[in-house]
């Protein structure tokens, strides 16, 4: 398969994730859509690593996975903290930071 096909799949998944972040209101699902976008980036990195024939892109993808795991841990901690304070789990309701 040509590398272009993988890049097209990656672009599709990325735009689906971006649309999902705009559409959904549950912060859990927004985190899931962020995961989609990060994984689309991973797929593009691995595809470029294959196209160029060296493994630096794969290392980059691994580091992206580490950063995604950190982001998930902190994001889920925030959601649990929101839930503990009896606040609604809805990004449209949580607008105190807007001032």
């Amino acid at each position, binding site marked *: *398969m*040509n*590398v*272009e*096909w993988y*890049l*097209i*799949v990656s*672009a*599709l*998944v*990325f*735009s*689906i*994730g971006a*649309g*999902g972040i*705009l*559409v*959904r*209101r*549950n912060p*859990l*699902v927004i*985190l*899931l*859509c962020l995961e*989609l976008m990060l*994984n689309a980036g*991973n*797929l593009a990195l*691995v595809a470029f*690593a*294959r*196209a*160029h*024939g060296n*493994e*630096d892109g*794969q*290392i980059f*993808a691994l580091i992206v*996975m*580490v950063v*995604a*795991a*950190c*982001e*998930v*841990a*902190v994001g*889920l*901690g*925030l959601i*649990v*903290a929101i*839930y*503990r*304070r009896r606040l609604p*789990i809805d990004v449209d309701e949580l607008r105190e930071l807007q001032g």
Partner: protein
Amino acid sequence: MAEVFFFLAAIGALAGAIGTVALRSPFYSVLSLVCHLLSLAALFLLLRAEFVAAAQVIVYVGAVMVLYLFVVAYVGGGADPISTAGRPGLRWASALFAGALFAELSIAVLGTGLSALGEEGSGWFAGFGTPSEIGRLLLTDFLLAFEVASILLLVAAVGAVILARRRTGLDDAREISVGDLLRSGSRDALTGGDAGTMIEVEGPPRR
């Protein structure tokens, strides 16, 4: 044969992605994302990234998604099905934005002058993407990134614990901050007293 597997995995990945966005219950969204990640691991295997595929399955599907499932079960996301959007206009605008983003990315990818993209990829040596090769690279060329990633994981673990810990007695004015935690920890963490753990019950010691 590779074409068949590619299209199967790509359809699985796209279906999983659409399901993640479109399914109403967060629980089903998580399960759909698991399907997406498994298909993506198959795509990684097709791209000869064995170690990345294995790490994808173990780290993402095995650990991160289980964490998601626990939080969804704890928060009770299935109880109230979250509506996709309050205003229908916003939904159409989002779909339009996603379509425009895809068109732009496709133009950028297909219009690039990289000649290697039109073929199956350049030559690969034996052992391309195997764990030994990735490990050698991580401990030689990318040692700094490796160490920074470990520090980042440590910071994220501490941050998650501090964010999600149980706060009793937060309703009175004394909010617990990280500085209080460190101060009280240095002063009487080991004495403990009758207060259970130092974080939990009383917050900073009364002065």
